């Protein structure tokens, strides 16, 4: 290419060449400009789309979170309800069990105790007597038997009425139970007949206890409907294991015989059973 010398204006062919080059450059710039415009437009549209998508996703996420929180709250409430129900059920179960035990005890007491006097009944005596006999035999320990009968009880019932008679029975049994509770057990044997077993005790000590009971009962003041029911006396027959027998039937028969003697000799007394001929 021919270059014009310095200080001389360019030649026409040179100028034309420069114009061509400039035109080419301008076309390129115009193309780049057009490309950039398209790019800008594309990026803008894409950004808008992305922004919209992000917004939509964000909203969806928030709704999801709200829903999950709601579910979680519902689950917490359910859990609280279930926990409360379990706690309630445990208390209900404990209450029912304890109540069942109490009722069982109550029914058992009813089955072994006389409802009027609170003393053990004759059915319980049968079982208990066997246990006392086994204990006495195994340990070679004596025990005493006191059979008592309230004097003139039938006449008393006729004079004052059966309710007053019940009151007398209740007071006499209460006194006997309180007096012997540390040393023995009292049972209602029949109508006005009471039987007392004195554990691990000699015959003569049993006799002394019977005397104390007789004297104590004589001192009782019993009233019914503000009426003084007068003095109560009782007769006792006393027998002892093993002196008078080694089984319940024999021992009771011996005490009964002694009681009969006490009645026959004028009542209000304690009679020791006669010893069998062999002893």
């Amino acid at each position: 290419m021919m270059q014009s010398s310095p200080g001389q204006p360019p030649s026409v062919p040179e100028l034309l060449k420069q114009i061509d080059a400039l035109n080419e450059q301008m076309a390129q710039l115009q193309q780049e400009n057009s490309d950039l415009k398209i790019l800008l437009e594309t990026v803008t549209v894409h950004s808008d789309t992305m922004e919209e998508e992000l917004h939509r996703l964000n909203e969806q996420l928030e709704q999801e979170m709200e829903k999950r929180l709601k579910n979680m709250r519902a689950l917490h409430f359910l859990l609280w309800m279930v926990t409360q129900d379990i706690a309630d059920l445990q208390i209900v179960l404990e209450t029912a069990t304890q109540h069942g035990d109490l009722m069982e005890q109550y029914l058992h007491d009813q089955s072994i105790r006389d409802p009027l006097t609170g003393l053990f009944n004759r059915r319980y005596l049968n079982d208990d007597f066997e246990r006392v006999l086994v204990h006495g035999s195994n340990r070679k320990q004596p025990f005493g038997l006191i059979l008592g009968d309230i004097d003139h009880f039938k006449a008393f019932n006729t004079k004052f009425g059966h309710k007053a008679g019940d009151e007398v029975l209740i007071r006499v049994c209460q006194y006997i139970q309180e007096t012997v509770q540390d040393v023995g057990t009292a049972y209602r044997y029949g109508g006005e007949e009471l039987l007392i077993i004195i554990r691990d005790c000699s015959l003569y000590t049993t006799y002394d206890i019977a005397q104390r009971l007789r004297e104590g009962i004589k001192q009782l003041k019993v009233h019914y409907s503000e009426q003084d029911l007068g003095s109560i006396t009782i007769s006792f027959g006393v027998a002892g294991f093993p002196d008078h027998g080694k089984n319940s039937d024999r021992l009771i028969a011996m005490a009964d015989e002694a009681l009969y003697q006490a009645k026959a000799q004028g009542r209000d007394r304690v009679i020791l059973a006669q010893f069998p001929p062999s002893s």
Partner: protein
Amino acid sequence: MDITTETYQVTYDDTTQTIIFHGSLRLSGMEEYTPIIDLLHQIADQRPTSMSLDLRNLQFLNSSGINVLSKFVIRVRQYKNIALFIIGSKDIPWQGKSLKNLQRLMPQLQLEWE
């Protein structure tokens, strides 16, 4: 609203909003207790501000019976706005322990002894 049988009686005194129990409740299972449960619910569902169970003359109550009372106390507790009173007798041995247990189900429950 009263239930009367040979062995027990349940009556409702609406002037004092008190359900009064008499006798011995030895019914077998929850099914046989349904009339009593219905009576209790009927009264509680009216949402009185307070109600009382008078058990002073209820001599005997079996395990199903104490279950009925326990569940009733829970129901009243859930209502939140009923003041519940239970009147018991010191002379009836089972009442002391069992009625106190009901207070564990509803601490606001008021026990009165006579």
